[in-house]
């Protein structure tokens, strides 16, 4: 407490002065009451001010002086024990570094406010209700006409901004031969001025750039893109690029820190919302809606207005719905508009990684605690070697607080050095972890600035860590009894007890980390190896685009050409790949009745696609070139179960309702095996496939501007990628390949989170095991050193090696067992919070508990080996002579 009082004094100078003055004044009054002459008393006292300074000196300057002396002494002390100090610093650095890089990541993605004016007034609009699957469901995408109504309704209290999801777009600057990808976002023209973003060059959009559908082919590029793509060329203003049918002109460049409103994605190019083809559609939800509150605006009335506006929009729209049950319609209409704070932006990456990052944060903190326990043990062992020095200090009048300070200052040295090394580690590992969040094909792009937030965190961490591992050894060291210490006898048992306790704590945390890592690694394995119903090996997926919609026979020619190439087994087409992220669904009605409210998921595929994907045909036939959409359909087993009570549906028919109110009839020509459509975790969805050849109302084949070509290769698929990229335009000069992936890469993108968790938790588990092992070794080594006299005597009277080994390790191993038991308890409690992230694995599986138990046992045995050998080899003769 004395130390705390002094730290307080530094910050409470005035208050302190008043207290001292009051005390001196009370002394003078006392003296006068005792009958002394007032003038003489005051003279005897001298100037009150001088005393005050004198007393303050004692409290402040002496402390600072002593701090300086301790810092120098502590530094020299570190130098004296170089190996132990280096071990302590490195193990601590690893843990602090991991903590800092976790913090950088969590801060950049989840905590840091957007670099805009008044981020605290920014909100994200979403709708909450009962989803088509009957479960509660929140959705934050909007249709533009709805957005326009809502914007007008709350005009006086808030400004609404539409921002689409930033997605990679295909564009060309010079000729069509050079398609490149850039992250493109449709934004409201007034977004920049509302968010206070200013141009670095040229001009940004205004309200006037976002008035007529298709009427504003202008682009604003981000500072980052300007730097990387154009090398900050000032002539970039006025340059044009093609995207789709449109020619866009670059109007301006934004200022540095603004990279859009989606942490995890850096937008390259902003274009006005009016340029999005879906801008006039009531039935297409494609953008988020952000609200910037005007100063002093109350939230609830605005939310209420938005809710009413959106509801009347949907009621109007629902008049055109067909084949939807009353219940589903009620669910649809009874959605509530929510306004959620969005000061740090809104992105899918945020919502996907929030929990995994929180878990990693906790694990990292546990690793840090293990490292702290380690260093605390090291310091205790070191402090015991300094018992005599401490005793001398106590006997010559060093107060307890002073000794605590001495040891703490030395701990602070360790922590600061460790934080510096850890900072370097974090600087390197932060971007590395970010690169793991997404596959290389579609990397998460996150600003990871190292600024005062990160520095402040690092300093707070270093300080906290110092207190954590330094305080107990410091208090221990200072409570030394000088008389017995100087006589040569000390109390090794009490010190060992503390160290053993720390071993138990270490083992418990280590167990928890290894346990959780085991669960995540198993989840990752089970999810990756789970059957998808199709074969992803040897399949290349080519996203292919044309400037204008092209006739079907051109597309067929392209596929035909690819099929003829060497190394290609077969080729087919579809609107999109399985598990590729795009989903297309509708309600199905059988026998002309209304839908049963279960959504069915669709995919348009060409003949031969089933063969290319190796999807088993259970009954009926594949599509033929003459099949069209609408007309024929293939359905999966779940579809048959859901709509036909499991009866073979081949030969039967179903209807789809269009938004325009028409009914489209499909004849089921085949039954296929269930495959994974959207992701790997959800139950299999009812699915049906329609022919890639689609016809319009007049019966003519529709032209298409994009398709996905599937190529099954007989060689390693990646080796054909560049050849195929050239061969597609050779088959038909209208076509370009905008992106090539293997189906395997697409599948793997669904286990990114699991892979991240598995890899990082495994890494932390290894670090924790390593630290715990080192800690255990240190404690055993120390206890052997301490008891070498006793061991020597035992050996000399004939103790066996086994007995000595037992003697040395018994206490520590019982602590390991105790710690493991505590770890099991901790593990069982903590998995309750994270069970939803597991896949087909339970925390209570015996195997899951066996992994950490065995790992810790093996680590403990390994750590014990050397100290045991050392103990057994003690030569009693030389030992006793030395004493």
């Amino acid at each position: 407490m004395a130390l705390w009082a002094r730290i307080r004094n530094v910050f409470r100078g005035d208050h302190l002065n008043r207290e001292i003055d009051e005390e001196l004044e009370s002394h003078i009054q006392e003296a006068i009451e005792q009958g002394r002459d007032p003038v003489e008393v005051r003279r005897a006292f001298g100037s009150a001010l001088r005393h005050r300074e004198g007393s303050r000196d004692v409290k402040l300057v002496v402390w600072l002086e002593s701090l300086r002396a301790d810092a120098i002494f502590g530094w020299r002390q570190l130098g004296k024990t170089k190996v132990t100090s280096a071990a302590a610093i490195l193990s601590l650095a690893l843990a602090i570094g991991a903590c800092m890089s976790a913090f950088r990541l969590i801060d950049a993605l989840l905590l840091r406010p957007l670099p805009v004016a008044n981020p605290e007034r920014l909100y994200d609009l979403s709708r909450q209700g009962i989803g088509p699957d009957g479960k509660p469901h929140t959705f934050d995408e909007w249709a533009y006409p709805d957005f326009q109504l809502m914007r007008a309704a709350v005009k006086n209290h808030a400004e609404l901004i539409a921002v689409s999801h930033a997605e990679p777009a295909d564009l060309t600057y010079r000729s069509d031969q050079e398609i490149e990808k850039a992250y493109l976002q449709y934004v409201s023209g007034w977004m920049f001025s509302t968010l206070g973003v200013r141009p670095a060059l040229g001009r940004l959009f205004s309200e006037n750039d976002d008035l007529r559908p298709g009427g504003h082919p202008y682009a604003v590029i981000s500072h980052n893109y300007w730097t990387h793509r154009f090398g900050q060329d000032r002539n970039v203003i006025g340059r044009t690029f093609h995207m789709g049918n449109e020619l866009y002109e670059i109007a301006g460049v934004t200022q540095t820190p603004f990279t859009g409103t989606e942490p995890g994605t850096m937008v390259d190019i902003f274009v006005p919302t009016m340029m999005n083809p879906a801008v006039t559609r009531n039935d297409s939800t494609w953008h988020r809606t952000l609200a910037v509150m005007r100063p002093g605006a109350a939230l609830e009335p605005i939310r209420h207005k938005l809710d009413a506006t959106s509801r009347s929009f949907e009621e109007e729209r629902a008049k055109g719905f067909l084949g939807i049950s009353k219940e589903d319609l009620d669910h649809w209409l009874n959605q509530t508009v929510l306004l959620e704070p969005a000061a740090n932006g809104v992105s899918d990456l945020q919502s996907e990684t929030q929990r995994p990052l929180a878990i990693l944060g906790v694990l990292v903190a546990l690793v840090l605690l293990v490292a702290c326990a380690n260093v605390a043990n090291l310091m205790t062992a070191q402090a015991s070697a300094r018992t005599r020095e401490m005793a001398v200090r106590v006997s010559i009048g060093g107060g307890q607080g002073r000794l605590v300070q001495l040891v703490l200052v030395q701990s602070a040295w360790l922590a600061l050095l460790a934080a510096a090394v850890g900072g370097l580690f974090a600087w390197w590992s932060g971007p590395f972890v970010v690169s793991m969040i997404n596959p290389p094909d579609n990397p998460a792009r996150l600003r990871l600035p190292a600024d005062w937030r990160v520095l402040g965190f690092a300093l707070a961490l270093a300080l906290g860590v110092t207190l954590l591992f330094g305080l107990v050894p410091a208090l221990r060291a200072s409570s030394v009894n000088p008389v017995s210490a100087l006589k040569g006898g000390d109390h090794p048992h009490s010190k060992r007890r503390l160290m053993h306790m720390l071993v138990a704590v270490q083992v418990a945390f280590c167990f928890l980390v290894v346990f959780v890592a085991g669960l995540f690694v198993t989840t990752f394995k089970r999810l990756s190896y789970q059957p998808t119903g199709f074969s992803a090996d040897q399949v290349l997926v080519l996203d292919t685009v044309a400037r204008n919609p092209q006739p079907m026979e051109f597309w067929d020619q392209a596929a035909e050409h690819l099929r003829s190439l060497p190394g290609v087994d077969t080729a087919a087409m579809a609107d999109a790949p399985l598990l590729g992220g795009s989903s297309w669904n509708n309600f199905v009605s059988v026998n002309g009745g209304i839908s049963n409210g279960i959504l069915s998921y669709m995919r348009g595929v060409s003949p031969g696609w089933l063969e290319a994907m190796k999807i088993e045909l259970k009954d009926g036939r594949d599509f033929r070139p003459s099949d069209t959409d609408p007309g024929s359909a293939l359905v999966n087993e779940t579809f048959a179960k859901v709509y036909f009570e499991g009866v073979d549906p081949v030969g039967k028919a179903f209807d789809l309702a269009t938004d325009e109110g028409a009914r489209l009839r499909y004849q089921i020509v085949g039954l296929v095996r269930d495959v994974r459509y959207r992701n790997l975790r959800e139950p299999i969805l009812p699915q049906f496939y329609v022919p890639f050849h689609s016809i319009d109302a007049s019966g003519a084949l529709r032209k298409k501007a994009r398709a996905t070509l599937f190529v099954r290769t007989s060689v390693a698929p990646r080796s054909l990628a560049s050849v195929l990229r050239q061969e597609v335009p050779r088959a038909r000069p209208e076509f370009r390949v905008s992106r090539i992936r293997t189906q395997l890469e697409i599948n793997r993108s669904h286990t990114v989170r699991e892979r991240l968790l598995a890899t990082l938790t495994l890494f932390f588990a290894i670090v924790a095991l390593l630290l715990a092992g080192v800690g255990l070794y240190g404690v055993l080594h120390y206890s052997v050193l301490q008891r070498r006299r006793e061991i020597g005597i035992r050996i000399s009277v004939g103790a066996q090696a086994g007995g000595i080994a037992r003697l040395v390790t018994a206490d520590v191993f019982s602590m390991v067992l105790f710690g493991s038991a505590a770890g099991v308890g901790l593990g069982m409690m903590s998995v309750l919070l994270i069970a939803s992230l597991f896949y087909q694995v339970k925390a209570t599986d015996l195997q899951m508990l066996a992994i950490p138990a065995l790992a810790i046992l093996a680590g403990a045995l390994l750590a014990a080996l050397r100290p045991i050998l050392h103990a057994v080899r003690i030569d009693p003769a030389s030992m006793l002579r030395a004493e």
Partner: protein
Amino acid sequence: MSMSLTVAKRDSLQGSLDLLVLKVVSRRRRLHGYAIMSAIQEMSGDVLRVEEGSLYPALHRMEAAGWIRAEWIRKENGRRARVYELTPAGKKQLGLEESGWQTVTAAVNRVLREA
């Protein structure tokens, strides 16, 4: 430079003053500065006089070292006074200083007798 001088000078006074203050505070609880000063004077038969100028810095230093504990109380006349009492650490310290003093004086006495 002047700073370390003050510190050194005070340290040379420290031995006996600390011992005296600790002893007085251990005998009677909750004494304020003036009472400590008077007690030393009285108990030493007016031989030892502590100057105010050294007493208060010493009190504050010992408080900072955790040997004595201070507390504000309100007296009957309404004035606040700061009173001191011994802590367990101070008690230990008193024992050390006392035995130290005994050793030194015994040694000095031996020297005087031998000489």
